């Protein structure tokens, strides 16, 4: 490990770090890619509706089934397992559906991607227009401070905030007022920095549609004098978010920032089949970032193909969190500290031009 003088990070998208990222060439840079023959990549990129239709039927059936259980057993303890299942499906698995359909890779048929994308965006309280653009930026400038709008844990890490994320409270407190603000026609400077002007009015319209549905849900709840409509629409964003956070935090936490090699700032973690269904294989996250054209159902195959060139995947979520915990503690004092994951001997080494752009960095290997 080496230490270096710390440069305070400014996570605003229109601030000092933004200026430095643009000036240093970190913004919109060329990223490292593992070599994959075109013919093989073409096969991996192929779209088909089958897997996503199958998974979506299971997903919707499970949502409707668990919702029926909530209505049937409301007022008894038997409702708890139904709330557990419904909450995770609504508040967590919607994230991966939002993600894959936003990329347009889940289904071959475009309208199917769009329909699921909008439904999942609503479940997540995410403005579908805003988040499409923020995610494009996340892929252009992954964990580039001042550019990436989707950095989950900033440095120095706020551990209380990270812990509270599992409850959904902070996200709820951010997402709902954001939608209200946007519905009244106001976009923040950060949002304007990544949503093109010609698309900004669409973000306002989308926020208004979301608010109409929430207002209707509240009206129904009042009319029925029942909490059930709110437990089914809106509140799962609180009680069902934990799995999304559990899996999603591991994507980049504790790894390098301001580098242009996904092997340094992104993590692949092996997960159990249930979590992989909920997460739609986004545990293969290095692979996804390197080749976002590859659909979720082809990621395990891509992983097998390129794993010789990647850091060894964490064998479990538990292993990954155990690995990252001491790094987070260290970052409390030295925010430049990060986990530099070792490459196997078969991999191409990290190349200076791809990751030495960062001026100050201290790494643990």
């Amino acid at each position: 490990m080496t230490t270096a003088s710390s440069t305070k990070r400014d996570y605003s998208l229109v601030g000092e770090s933004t200026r430095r990222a643009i000036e240093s060439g970190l913004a919109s840079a060329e990223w490292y890619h593992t070599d994959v023959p075109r013919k093989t990549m073409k096969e991996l990129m192929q779209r088909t509706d089958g897997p996503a239709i199958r998974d979506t039927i299971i997903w919707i059936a499970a949502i409707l089934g668990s919702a029926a259980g909530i209505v049937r057993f409301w007022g008894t303890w038997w409702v708890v397992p139904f709330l557990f299942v419904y909450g995770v499906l609504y508040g967590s698995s919607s994230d991966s559906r939002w993600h894959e359909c936003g990329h347009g890779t889940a289904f071959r048929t475009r309208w199917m991607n769009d329909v699921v994308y909008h439904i999942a965006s609503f479940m997540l309280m995410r403005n579908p227009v805003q988040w499409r653009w923020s995610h494009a930026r996340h892929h252009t400038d992954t964990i580039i401070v001042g550019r990436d709008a989707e950095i989950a844990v900033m440095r120095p890490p706020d551990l209380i905030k990270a812990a509270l994320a599992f409850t959904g409270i902070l996200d709820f407190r951010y997402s709902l007022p954001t939608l209200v603000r946007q519905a009244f026609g106001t976009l923040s400077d950060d949002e304007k920095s990544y949503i093109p002007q010609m698309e900004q009015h669409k973000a306002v319209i989308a926020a208004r549609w979301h608010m109409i549905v929430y207002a209707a849900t509240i009206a129904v709840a009042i009319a029925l004098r029942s909490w059930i409509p709110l437990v089914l629409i809106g509140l799962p964003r609180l009680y069902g978010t934990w799995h999304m956070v559990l899996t999603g935090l591991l994507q980049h936490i504790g790894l390098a920032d301001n580098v242009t090699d996904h092997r340094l700032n992104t993590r692949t973690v092996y997960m159990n089949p249930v979590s992989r269904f909920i997460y739609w294989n986004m545990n293969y996250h290095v692979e996804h970032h390197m080749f976002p054209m590859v659909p979720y159902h082809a990621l395990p195959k891509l992983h097998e193909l390129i794993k010789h060139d990647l850091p060894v995947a964490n064998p479990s979520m538990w292993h990954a969190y155990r690995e990252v915990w001491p790094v987070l503690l260290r970052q409390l004092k030295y925010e430049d500290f990060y986990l530099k994951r070792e490459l196997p001997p078969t991999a191409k080494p990290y190349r200076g031009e791809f990751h030495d752009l960062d001026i100050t960095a201290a790494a643990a290997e």
Partner: protein
Amino acid sequence: MADWVEACAVDDVDEEDVIRFDHGGRSFAIYRSPENTFFATDGFCTHEKAHLADGLVMDDIIECPKHNGRFNYKTGQAKGAPVCVNLKTYPVRVEAGKVMIDIG
């Protein structure tokens, strides 16, 4: 004014695929449709600098490898976010097994 240049041989492009062609400091994408017809567009996506030759051809669509932006490569039409600006297209003809494009 027309300026026809030889881009590649017919067999260089697989059916429903795309290749890159660089000429005079410019970069182009040459497509072969599922109907075995050739088309040409600017090489780089209008959203960000990613070469479309690394993307995926599906029917009439080329999908950018970086953000999955989609264009109709026959007309250049951008099909929605994150691509909002159409792609420039170029006339193409096939002569004696060679794909020619008019870059004028």
